């Protein structure tokens, strides 16, 4: 590593080659104002907020994208740099509509913050205020071009981080616009609504429909947790106000590197479904609210009436370790019953694993086998597309429609797995991503090749289910059936099978899931109310923290199971 000397504001330090002036300054605790810079994005020097004075150079230079040269001497806060920054701000404010008094971002906006810091009490230049479009064609967030400062953070996020390349620029000068594809409405474009652009936008140009006007950063609470809506287990920050979730943001330090998909960022907050808020017991053919005492007594009675071998429990493999363990302890250990998962479990045999998300970044070949990551494990799919941008070859080996196939260099049917594997052997750093529950004979072929393997499971915590020896060969001969459903859904076949059981208990979140099926309903906390652990795609134990307490009458699943265990 080459070490370079740099002097910033008279302070000399050593930095590694490739360090930018901005990075060096930040490391030394010197703050340089920025707008287009974002730590997760490549710097392009678009906004000129970070201009600094370099000794013996006539023009000011952008600190964010200027690499340190050995012996360079930099001044960050001179009358000239301050004047220039003020000028840049004046230009930005005069270009579009920045009337903060009616802007959603006011209070948290980075542009506004800089204007305050630079004492802009009014704008010197006239504001022609073109009447630009507000594009509300996307379901979850809105683009208001009138607030956009053309910093291109969204474009870099979409292209370089998500690998989706929906966003770009159109026209020049004052007419420049952020556009999707060939100037399509965002909602009709190739945008996958991952929301990464929304998360990086420094102004009020991109607005989250749900959390808009819901509270400024100073009013909200942020809890670091994990998404359990697929087996990737992306790290998230859940933002709440007074116990009400406002939005979900990707954690830049997680293995997902800040990226989420719409199933983790937006959909969980937009269900609009009626929640189960109290225990319920069926009386005269209809479910009626009951006390916990009545509900648990009814479950105990139903369980005791059944032959132990015919007491079954179905548990979603999306649940956390603690409730899953508690179901197994109670139903298998204590009641002598049988526990299955609702989601497909891998058949017995070796499930080659050990790969990490970052292995994809350095792979020269990624082979996807019998899986559709862009549909079911989206953040991993984005990561693979990004790898393709960086030169990796992408092979897809799967039957039927596969959304990854459009981006693959070669696609094979599953019967041609051997051909695909032949390419893997020629690669230097191959990664194989496959469906864990695939045909075990084909899976065995993956176990013997030299590649990093990442199994994709049907639910977030399938790894725990496997280690507890659970599979999903559910049958219909139960006399008493307990289902830990949470916010998952039964398939029509599972529903039909459950119907055959004379006594059904459902531990679930939503009313329409339990109606017409359950004899007893136990309310379950929602995803942002749960606490515990699970294993993510990399096999690492991840913490899930509650961002809000559950409503008063909803107990944690483990304490419900404990109480039940005591009563039988």
């Amino acid at each position, binding site marked *: 590593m080459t070490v370079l000397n740099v002097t910033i504001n008279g302070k000399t330090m050593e930095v590694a080659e490739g360090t930018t002036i901005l990075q060096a300054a930040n490391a030394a605790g010197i703050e340089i104002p920025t707008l287009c810079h974002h730590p997760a994005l490549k710097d392009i020097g678009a906004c000129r907020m970070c201009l600094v004075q370099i000794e013996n150079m006539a023009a000011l230079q952008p600190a964010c994208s200027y690499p340190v040269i050995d012996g360079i001497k930099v001044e960050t806060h001179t009358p000239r740099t301050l004047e220039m920054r003020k000028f840049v701000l004046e230009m930005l404010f005069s270009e579009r509509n920045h009337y903060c008094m009616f802007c959603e971002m006011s209070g948290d906006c980075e542009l506004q913050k800089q*204007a305050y810091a630079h004492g802009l009490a009014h704008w010197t230049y006239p504001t022609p205020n073109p009447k630009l479009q507000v594009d509300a064609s996307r379901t979850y967030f809105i683009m208001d071009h009138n607030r956009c400062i053309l910093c291109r953070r969204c474009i870099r996020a979409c292209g370089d981080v998500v690998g989706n390349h929906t966003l770009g620029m159109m026209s020049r000068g004052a007419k420049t616009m952020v556009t999707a594809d060939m100037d399509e409405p965002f909602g009709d474009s190739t945008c996958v609504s991952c929301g990464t652009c929304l998360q990086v936008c420094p102004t009020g140009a991109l607005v989250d429909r749900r959390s808009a006007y819901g509270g400024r950063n100073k009013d909200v609470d942020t809890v670091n947790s994990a998404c359990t809506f697929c087996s990737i287990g992306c790290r998230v920050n859940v933002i709440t106000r007074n116990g009400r979730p406002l939005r979900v943001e990707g954690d830049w330090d997680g293995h997902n590197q800040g990226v989420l998909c719409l199933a983790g960022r937006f959909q969980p907050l937009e269900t609009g479904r009626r929640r189960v808020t109290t225990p319920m017991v069926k009386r005269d053919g209809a479910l009626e609210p009951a006390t916990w005492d009545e509900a648990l007594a009814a479950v105990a009675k139903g369980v005791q009436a059944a032959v132990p071998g015919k007491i079954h429990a179905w548990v979603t493999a999306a649940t956390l370790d603690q409730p899953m363990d508690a179901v197994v302890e109670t139903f298998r250990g204590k009641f002598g019953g049988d526990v299955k998962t609702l989601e497909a479990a891998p058949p017995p045999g070796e499930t080659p694993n050990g790969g990490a998300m970052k292995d994809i970044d350095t792979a020269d070949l990624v082979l996807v086998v019998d899986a559709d990551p862009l549909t079911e494990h989206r953040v991993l799919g984005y990561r693979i597309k990004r790898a393709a941008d960086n030169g990796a070859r992408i092979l897809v080996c799967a039957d039927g429609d596969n959304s990854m196939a459009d981006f693959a260099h070669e696609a094979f049917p599953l019967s041609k797995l051997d051909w695909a594997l032949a390419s893997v052997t020629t690669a230097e750093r191959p990664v194989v991503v496959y469906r864990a529950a695939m045909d075990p004979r084909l899976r065995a072929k993956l176990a013997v090749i030299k590649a990093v393997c990442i199994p994709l499971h049907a639910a977030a915590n399938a790894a725990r289910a496997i280690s507890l020896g659970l599979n999903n060969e559910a049958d219909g001969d139960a006399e008493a059936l307990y289902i830990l459903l949470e916010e998952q859904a039964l398939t029509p076949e599972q529903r039909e099978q459950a119907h055959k059981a004379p006594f059904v208990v459902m531990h679930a979140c939503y009313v329409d899931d339990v109606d017409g099926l359950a004899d007893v309903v136990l309310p379950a906390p929602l995803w942002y109310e749960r606490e515990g652990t699970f294993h993510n795609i990399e096999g690492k134990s991840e913490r899930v923290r509650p961002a809000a307490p559950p409503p008063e009458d909803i107990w944690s699943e483990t304490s419900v199971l404990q109480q039940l265990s005591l009563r039988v």
Partner: protein
Amino acid sequence: MAKPKIATDWMGDCAGCHMSLLDMDERLLTVLGKVELTSSPITDLKHPPEEGVAVGVLSGSINNTSNVYVARMMRKRSGCLIAMGDCAVLGGVLSMRNAFDIKEGLRRAYIDTESTVDGFIPQSDELAKPIRNRPLDQVVKVDYHLPGCPPSADAIFHVLNELAEGREPVVEGEALKYD
């Protein structure tokens, strides 16, 4: 020595800035101990005296010919002029109107409003004519800008007190807000 005179007036605004001025509460007495308030929309005398004042304060944006008249009169009669509030400084909420044609706006307000029956656009030579919205400094010279929607009572007190004490009012830190 006589206390310096100060006058305020409003143009196209919601009166919130003057409410905020009243929000100074007991500090109003501090200010009034140092200056003489000759006229304002919230006193009996509405117009700045002909002989002039040391400090003129205007809230609201320029939206019609009457606003132009008020602005010019205040400018002529004030030693120094303060633009108070986002409307006066930037154009304010009323600037949203600029995205539409004035005729279209009048129609919407006087005829198309859901609750209006038999609406008509009032027309009389005595009425001011609506014009494109603009901030105060596009019509007359402004000496000090105090943005905010409305500016806080603290910020207003700061500016008036600094002027009363003969210092240049600098709007920064907590006093500088655009919303």
